[in-house]
């Protein structure tokens, strides 16, 4: 799996990211991981599930687990508002699930050499608020024209529930 990932990045030199906002900050995931983005935010709550689980969502007959990405990253609980969206991932990323985000952003093209890998350098100022386990969700950081883009590793999101 790892090999494939690095291959796709090296081969192209650039990577497309689906970006979205969480508590005012810009985050992104690899666009190839994303199945779709939906406006549907009427979840069925699942009592007894971890706090980060917002509930179940039916997308064309498939039940998806929706996680609160703000909570996963150590921000507060997401308030569902008009701009709220759910980013749903492909089955290859993990068993049918999606994440609730505050607002969806543009698709951003990032050059491979612009990405600072999480493991190589200490975390930047902006994301000091992450605690240790949450930093594992981060794939890398990229300086855009106006702001920082934090790239998340979508394959690790479900695992953060444990």
């Amino acid at each position, binding site marked *: 799996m790892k090999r494939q990932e690095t291959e796709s990045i090296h081969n192209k030199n650039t990577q497309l990211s689906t970006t979205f906002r969480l508590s005012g900050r810009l985050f992104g995931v690899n666009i190839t991981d994303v199945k779709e983005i939906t406006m549907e935010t009427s979840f069925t709550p*699942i009592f007894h*599930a971890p706090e980060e689980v917002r509930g179940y969502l039916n997308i064309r007959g498939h*039940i998806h*687990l929706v996680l609160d990405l703000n909570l996963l990253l150590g921000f507060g609980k997401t308030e569902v508002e008009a701009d709220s969206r759910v980013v749903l991932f492909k089955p290859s990323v993990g*068993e049918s699930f999606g994440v609730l985000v505050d607002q969806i952003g543009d698709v951003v093209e990032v050059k491979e050499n612009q990405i600072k890998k999480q493991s190589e350098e200490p975390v930047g100022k902006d994301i000091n608020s992450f605690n240790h386990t949450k930093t594992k969700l981060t794939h890398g950081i990229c300086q855009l024209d106006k702001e920082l883009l934090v790239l998340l590793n979508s394959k690790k999101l479900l695992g953060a529930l444990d």
Partner: protein
Amino acid sequence: MSFDPSLTDDFIAESKEHLAIIEKDLLAMEDYEDSIIPDAIGEIFRSIHSIKGAAGFMGFTQISEVAHVMETLLQMIRDNTIQPNSQHVDGLLVGLDMLTTMLDAPQSSNEIDTQDVHTILSNLIDEGSSPQIKAEMETAIPLLDNEKNRLEFEINEFELKKLPDSHTNLFILKFDLTLLAKEKAISPVILVNELMKAGIIVDAKIDTPAQNLSSNLEDESLIYQVLYSTILERDLVCSLTNLTKKDVIDVTAEKKPKPVAPSPSSPLPKEKMPDGDRNNNDTIRIPLNLLDELMTLAGELVLVRNQQLLTVNKSDPIVHGIAQRLDLVTTDLQETIMRTRMQPMGNIFGKLHRIVRDISRKLNKQIEIITVGDEVELDKSILESLGDPLTHLVRNCCDHGIEPPEEREQAGKSPKGLITIKAYHEAGQINVTIVDNGRGINLERVKAKALENGLKSAEELAQMKEKEALSLIMAPGFSTAKEVSDISGRGVGMDVVKTSIEQLSGSINLESKPGQETSVHLSLPLTLAIIPCLIASVEGHRYAIPQVNLEELVRLYDDDVYTKIECAGDHEVYRLRDYLLPMVRLNEVLRRPKTFNETTLTEISEHYHNQKIQKEMHNPSMTFAVLKAGSKRFGLIIDQVIGTEEVVVKPMHSKLNELLIYSGATVMGDGKVALILDVDGIARHSHIDAENRLHSEEESELHQKRHVEKDSQAVLLFKSGKHEQFAIALPLIRRVERIKMSQIEQIGEKQFIEIDGVSTLVLRMEDQLNVSPCLEKEDAFLLLLKHIKRPFGILLSQVVDVVETTVHLNVESYMEDGLLGTAIVRGQMTLFIDIFRLIEKAELDWFKERQTHSPPPEEQKHILVVEDTVFFRHLLQGYLEAEHYQVTTAENGQHALEILNGTSVDLIVSDLMMPVMDGWSFLEKLRKQEAFSDIPALALTGQDTDLDREKTYASGFNGYEIKINREDLLTQVAQLLQVEVASKETSPMMLPV
């Protein structure tokens, strides 16, 4: 072997299909003993052959060898070398069983000892083979390639001969399995099938050094060598197999066999026809998840259809027509997809023929089995789980039902017994009836057995209706077979069948006409993927409760909501008819992710009881569902019942598997997700089964009562001031009256209120004890006491609850005059009130009367108190000691007698209802001993009936008191002691009446 597991799975699935066909054909063959159907033989032969081929190259050598021997025998039958009889069929069936066993766990099949099977089959082969064939089989023919080099393969003459004449060409083909699987996705199974279409695999080998077998084979090439006999020329073989010429080695047998004259009966040409008609049922194998996917999509289509129907303008005929068609097509589509999961009953009926055949042989009975409705279809998963119960039922029929032939003839029946199994659709369910025309069920024997096993008492059995008695057979631990046989009746019997049927959401019914027949009727749902559910809502969210678990719905109105839900221990309970049903509040269950413990339970029941007392609940009705999970029953309180619906079950997300209370999720008609509740999980989560207290209905209640009598006491918990919680023994309380604070009148230093037209003295706790003052709010309560002659009540602000509590009062940590002691009840320190002492403190003059009647004794009198309840024992002791008596206590009559043997007492105060030895027998025993014949004895009891009174005096008591009026008790005690003193001084002795 490290083959891809899915490959092994394919192999197993396919082989099992073959085996099923073979079995059917073998049994059919036996029925037509005289005229063998060559078709059937050919078919069996082909099936065994392909198992052999596939097994050989999966490395399951034992499977392949057994198949090989069977094949040889079949070959001889086919060639008319052997006239098959039932011995041969038996032998082949044995082989078949061995194959089935090995296929169940192919990975370990190579360790299975197949020697017996080999011996049986080889003997059959030996018997049938002419000396010539034997010789042929023993003659190995070395094989040579074009350069006349010896090859690894050997072939015996017999095998060589049995190759069809047309197959003149022999090749060795070398395949690299790893390469095939990786690059062309051709599995060995496919490969074998391909090869078999154009020729015969005579022998095959896998070329791997033995030590490498267990190591990783993935990257190394795995050479599969096939000795292949075909009509095709080398070039064609190359193109067929995509092998290069160097991998196809031309082979010649050293001695070219003489051409065998083609026998006219040889079915070979026919056999060669590609894909025999029965092998090819026009079926394909589809993974279940693909079907589930289709199911999901169809479900979604229904949703879209529903939305579309809402928006359609019904007045436009064209649009309306289209909408209607969409409606029809969608429904059809959904039904069709449902059907893909369905499998015919015939799949399991087939096995039953074999079972009946084997058993009837073994038992020397003649039994015929007829199955009707082989084509009736039912969900694959249900069908699979139905196999075992059905087998068991049929075995029962053979073993218990059908009589031996002699017995049948004597009874005027045909010597051949008949078992009829019928499957049919009815009312959306699958019904299966199993009827045997045997001896029926002997009800008397069933009853006798039930009595013997202690399942029911003689009275219960006498009252039982026929049907009820019959159902005893399905009670756990019941077996009517006189001797436990290895066919049925291993102590676990019909109860297991019943449980498995119920697990499938089905039901089972028995009927019997003695001497004529027994019939068992099964009803089963069509599918488990869709289950009927009750949809209920709690706090605005919908939940599905499987109907299987649902027994009934109960709705309470108005005051019942407050009064009918009571507390027993930590649990809220509802008295449903004669059963104490524990109650679970779904909203509380959902709110609390942690499994309930006693604290949680107390919290919940207290919370609702406070609401109850203060009538804070606005909702004047309450609904609960009576649910059953295994042996547990409980009431689940929900907000609202929405209705029933058939829901498609989807499993929970794998990250949420740990959640006990859900069994799955489903998409509702409006496209929203609803969770399906796991009733058993909820029971476990809410700690219903703690202490097993509610398992068997009456017994546990009785047990509980006894338990209570021993060392616990029902007390009323109440509050007066802000802080302290008080407790008073329930038997002392007459009732609690609701009063208005404003109605209390102040007269001098005392307060009075009118209750039932009587001015009643109001006693405030803070006046007598060092506690916080009673809350001044308008609604208050007055506690009225039993056994107090003067009108008198204790003021309280809040009734907390009635609880059963163990009474081991602590007198060390905090003690005050007017208290019995303290104890922790529901996590709070609670003051137990000595009510008589309190009254005494408040109104000294009330008790003066008695004191004048009983002057304080000059010397201490010794009193023996016999009482089983700890609480009353302490209470009595306290009262008597306060009057300066010396007190010894005993727990029951037996205990008291022991004490009396070493101690002299002046008076006995004894309870009547006690364990071990009750008060009556205690006194009778006592009076028989001369030394004790005149000790005065006072009986104490809670029951004030004339019968008791008579019995009590008859047994030798001198007096009788009702629990527990302190004043009267002490008066009586004093009187009895005086009588005794008097009787010693003067005579004659007078018994008080």
